């Protein structure tokens, strides 16, 4: 016996706190009271986003979308929706208060701030079945390029779309392609940079895993445009599933004649090959990637010459990252006109981000350029885990900087993030809360760069290691104010004099935290204090003799052990032996163990 109606009550953290449970209970009570409990099922769901209009209630199959619902509305909802089969007009979400235009669930883009262009097929199609991709207009962009456009037309289309490189720096894609077309030489190459290496970033991996054919289609279009017959996808070996699905997709495309000789019966032939990277972060830098692709040690090379002129095996080469290529597939399918309406004037289209860190809803999101950081973190991401206080967000991975609460309303564009001392980067977004120590975070990223520096150029190779040591000094309570000056001095020289962007941006996390959180650095230095308690060496545990009842639990939990005391007498911690594991602090039921 099926229900006629389903009422979905958003019971995400935000809505739950605004009485979602009460609404849920009232709805069930009312359904019973009005004798329709067999006609309707009331269910609690996860967060729908759009929390500022919460609590939200959705009704299926009528697709009614109710906002700011109160428990006392339950009676009316049941009476109207279930008993009489009509909507409660006053609760419906209105796009515009004046016109009273209401919105249905099918218009979800109005309340969900995401807009999935790159990820349009992810979570929708079976990535191992080319037919499903084709059914969703897959390979129609290639079709259009091959049979309706000259290479120059494709470039014009890209120019009109306003697409810029999604790998970080935002170089106009059409220009890159055009430079490669104009570079002298018969042999040219298409290379996809799928060497996603920022900690916490996995947009490209998910994109390939969910929709490998988009990449293949776009690279083929690129090959047609620049006159290349070979393309390489450089992907890190740590992405086995993405590699597997790419292999399957390439095989299927070849079987269908969408790759290989005389594609779709045209005169154009193109082949794709996969090359595995060993996981060096620096190989995400395009010149280092090309070195690695040639079988050499992955070390950045001076630019110029740019890859567009002298790239793979010294031949003109287009090298774009996964997201850029996938955007090309969409642009060629849906047209530059459609695409260029998304985003801001200078930053067109969407951007994918991987939300990680102290965020309630970690995940892969895609938003139009120009979306505010606040919308991403608080609406899409559901805010900070456990309701803690937001401290900052790191964009651009180890190359980026920390953006603080003051800048949350900044619309995301290439320019705005750079102006904030960070960068777009590939799209990792790591959210920090008050329990994170900025010095510790700066040290973490610096340690990453120390390991991942290729070692070629002196400023980066030595600068990162010296800066890391200085940060280590500060987090262990041995820092001086002079060390802060040294950090800034090295950071500046490293930023200016490094050969590639790894070194050129490695100081960003440190410099941006010194700028935004100087006080916290000074606390570490002057007061030997870490307010978040992250820097173990600066934390001191002691037992308040007044609160301690001498139960001995802390002493039993202590792994060293370094807590002594008679039964029912106040206990004492031997600080010289304490390893600061915090077990005693967690164990004490009387708040007698003090951490400061």
């Amino acid at each position, binding site marked *: 016996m099926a229900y006629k109606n389903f009422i979905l009550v958003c019971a995400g953290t935000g809505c739950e706190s605004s009485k979602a449970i009460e609404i849920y209970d009232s709805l069930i009570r009312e359904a019973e009271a009005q004798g329709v409990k067999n006609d309707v099922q009331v269910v609690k769901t996860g967060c729908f986003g759009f929390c500022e209009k919460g609590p939200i209630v959705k009704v299926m199959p009528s697709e009614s979308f109710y906002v700011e619902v109160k428990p006392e509305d339950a009676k009316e909802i049941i009476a109207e929706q279930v008993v009489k089969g009509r909507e409660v007009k006053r609760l419906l979400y209105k796009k515009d208060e004046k016109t009273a235009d209401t919105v249905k669930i099918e218009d979800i883009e109005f309340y969900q701030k995401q807009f*999935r262009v790159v990820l349009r097929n992810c979570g929708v*199609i079976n990535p191992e079945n080319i037919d499903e991709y084709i059914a969703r207009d897959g390979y129609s962009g290639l079709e259009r390029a091959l049979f309706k456009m000259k290479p120059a037309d494709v470039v014009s289309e890209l120019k009109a779309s306003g697409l810029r490189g999604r790998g970080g720096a935002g170089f106009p894609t059409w220009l890159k392609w055009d430079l490669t077309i104009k570079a002298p030489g018969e042999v040219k190459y298409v290379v996809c940079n799928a060497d996603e290496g920022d900690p916490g970033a996995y947009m490209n*991996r*998910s994109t390939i895993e969910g929709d490998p054919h988009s990449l293949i289609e776009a690279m083929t279009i690129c090959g047609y445009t620049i006159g290349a017959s070979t393309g390489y996808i450089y992907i890190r070996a740590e992405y086995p*599933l993405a590699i597997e699905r790419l292999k399957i997709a390439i095989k299927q495309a070849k079987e269908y004649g969408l790759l290989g000789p005389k594609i779709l019966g045209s005169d154009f032939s193109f082949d794709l090959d996969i090359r595995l990277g060993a996981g060096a972060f620096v190989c995400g830098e395009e010149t280092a990637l090309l070195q690695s692709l040639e079988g050499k040690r992955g070390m950045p090379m001076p630019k110029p010459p740019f890859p567009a002129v002298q790239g793979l095996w010294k031949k003109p080469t287009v090298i774009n990252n996964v997201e850029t290529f996938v955007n090309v597939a969409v642009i060629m399918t849906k047209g530059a006109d459609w695409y260029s309406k998304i985003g801001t004037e200078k930053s067109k289209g969407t951007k994918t981000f991987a939300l990680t860190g102290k965020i309630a809803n970690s995940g892969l999101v895609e938003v139009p350029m120009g979306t505010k950081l606040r919308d991403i973190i608080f609406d899409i991401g559901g805010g900070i885990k456990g309701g803690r206080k937001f401290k900052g967000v790191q964009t651009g991975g180890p190359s980026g900087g920390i953006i603080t609460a003051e800048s949350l309303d900044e619309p995301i564009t290439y320019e705005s993030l750079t102006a904030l001392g960070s960068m777009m980067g590939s799209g990792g977004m790591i959210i920090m809360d008050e329990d994170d120590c900025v010095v510790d975070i700066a040290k973490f990223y610096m340690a990453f760069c120390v390991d991942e520096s290729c070692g070629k150029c002196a400023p980066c190779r030595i600068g990162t290691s010296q800066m890391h040591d200085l940060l280590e000094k500060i987090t262990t309570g041995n820092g001086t104010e002079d060390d802060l000056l040294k950090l800034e001095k090295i950071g500046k020289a490293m930023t200016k004099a490094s050969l590639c962007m790894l070194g050129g941006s490695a100081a960003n996390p440190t410099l941006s935290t010194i700028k935004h959180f100087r006080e916290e650095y000074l606390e570490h230095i002057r007061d030997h204090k870490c307010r978040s308690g992250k820097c173990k060496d600066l934390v001191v545990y002691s037992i308040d003799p007044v609160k301690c009842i001498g139960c001995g639990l802390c002493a039993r939990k202590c792994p060293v052990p370094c807590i002594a005391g008679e039964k029912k007498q106040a206990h004492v911690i031997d600080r010289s032996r304490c390893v600061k594991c915090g077990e005693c602090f967690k164990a004490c039921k009387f708040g007698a163990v003090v951490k400061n």
Partner: protein
Amino acid sequence: MAKMNLEQLRKLREDKKQDLTRREVEGKEIQVIVGMGTCGIAAGAKRTFDAIVDAVNAAGLGDQAIIRQTGCMGLCYVEPTVEVVAPGMPTVIYGKMTEGIVKDLVAKHLVGKKLLDDHIFDRPAADIMKK
């Protein structure tokens, strides 16, 4: 499938498009789609997938249901994610669908025609390909 020319590609696309708009696939009314990106698999999506196959068969729905995979739906915080399309029921995405809950899912949603509490999550965005 042999290599196609332009006309063949267009015809294939039209055929497959009609498949997509039909509720049933390969003559089966029920579709259970499991998010099988690395994030999903890491959270146990492979086990979930297998458990769904077992539970659907155990419920005698084997010949009515197709169980397939897709990429990451973007809801990494509630992996594994499973989308269920069934007649007479709203299409929903369930999160945190670990293998232990699968039996419940099949019993309630597919057999009992009831939605599961506390597991429904929203599709993150509208489908640009539908317009």
